[in-house]
Structures are given as C-alpha cells and as structure tokens.
C-alpha cells in the first residue's frame, strides 16, 4: 500500500511527523510518493485540471495488471473496508479460480464460473 500526491517528499516528511490534531498523519507507516508536477497522476487518469489528484485507488496484481479502480472527488474519503474486501476477493479468485459474487466476503460461498457452478451456488443460497 502506497500513497501518492503532487506534494514534494519534503512536504510528505513533515506531514508524516505532524500530529493528527494539527492536520498531520503522525503514526502512519504508509510510504508516501512525491508526484511533483502530476505526471504519474495524469498517467493513471486522476489528475484534475487544477493540478491536484482525485482520490483514486488502484489495485495492481502480482503481474503488474490493474484489477480494480475507484475514483472519488476530493471532498469524500474512501472505504477502507471495501478496499480490503476487494483485495481479499481478487486474491481468493487468483488462488482458487472461483468467482466472487456481489458482497462476497472471506468465508462466504464462491462460485465455479460455469452453468453448473451457478446452479450449485443458487441452490445453496436458498
């Protein structure tokens, strides 16, 4: 997990050391990347005309392929729970090959991606 904004690494360093009550994120251990100029935000499609980034989240699999994207306008934060749920579901799929229906969570029933698999899943769901 990595954070990226158009601030410098100098700003990031102070942000990481500033108390929460002062608007900082002291205690956070996330690496913060300095995308000065916004070239990386632009390449991911999250750079606003005013030069700052949307709240964009990109899940990248072990082969370097993007599996999941969310983008929020700046005023509203993301759901950490949903981000974790999606990571776990993609990892489950990669490991077991079965697919994860809506609202799937670890431990819930998954589905073989076949007609018989669908029938099994729906029978169990009754």
């Amino acid at each position, binding site marked *: 997990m990595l954070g990226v*904004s158009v601030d410098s690494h100098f700003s990031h360093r102070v942000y990481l050391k500033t108390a929460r009550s002062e608007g900082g994120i002291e205690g956070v251990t996330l690496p913060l990347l*300095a995308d000065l100029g916004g070239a990386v935000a632009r390449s991911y499609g*999250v750079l606003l005309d005013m030069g700052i980034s949307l709240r964009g989240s990109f899940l990248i699999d072990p082969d370097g392929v993007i599996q999941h994207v969310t983008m929020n306008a700046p005023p509203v934060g993301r759901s950490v729970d949903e981000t974790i749920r999606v990571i776990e579901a993609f990892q489950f799929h990669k490991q077991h090959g079965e697919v994860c229906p809506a609202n799937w969570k670890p431990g819930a029933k998954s589905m073989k991606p076949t007609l018989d698999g669908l029938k099994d899943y729906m029978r169990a769901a009754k």
Partner: protein
Amino acid sequence: MDCLVGKPAPAFELNAVVNGEFTKVSSASFKGKWTVLLFYPLDFTFV
C-alpha cells in the same frame, strides 16, 4: 482516457518518504506483490 482495468499499471519512479527516510520508489518493485496505489489531493487537507 481509456479505462485502466485489465491493463498494465503505468510505470514510474518517484522520490518518496519510507519509514521517515528519503528514497526512490519504482513501480518495478511491485512485481510479484499485490499493491494498492492511493492517490490523494494534497498533504494536510482535512479528509
């Protein structure tokens, strides 16, 4: 811009702060791991 889902993540190398130290982070270092890249507008905003 086209949707990026299912496509290779755009490559980059950036200055970064990791464990309080200045360093560089390259997208090449993500290979073999699940990675979440979180873009946010600016340091010290309120959300």
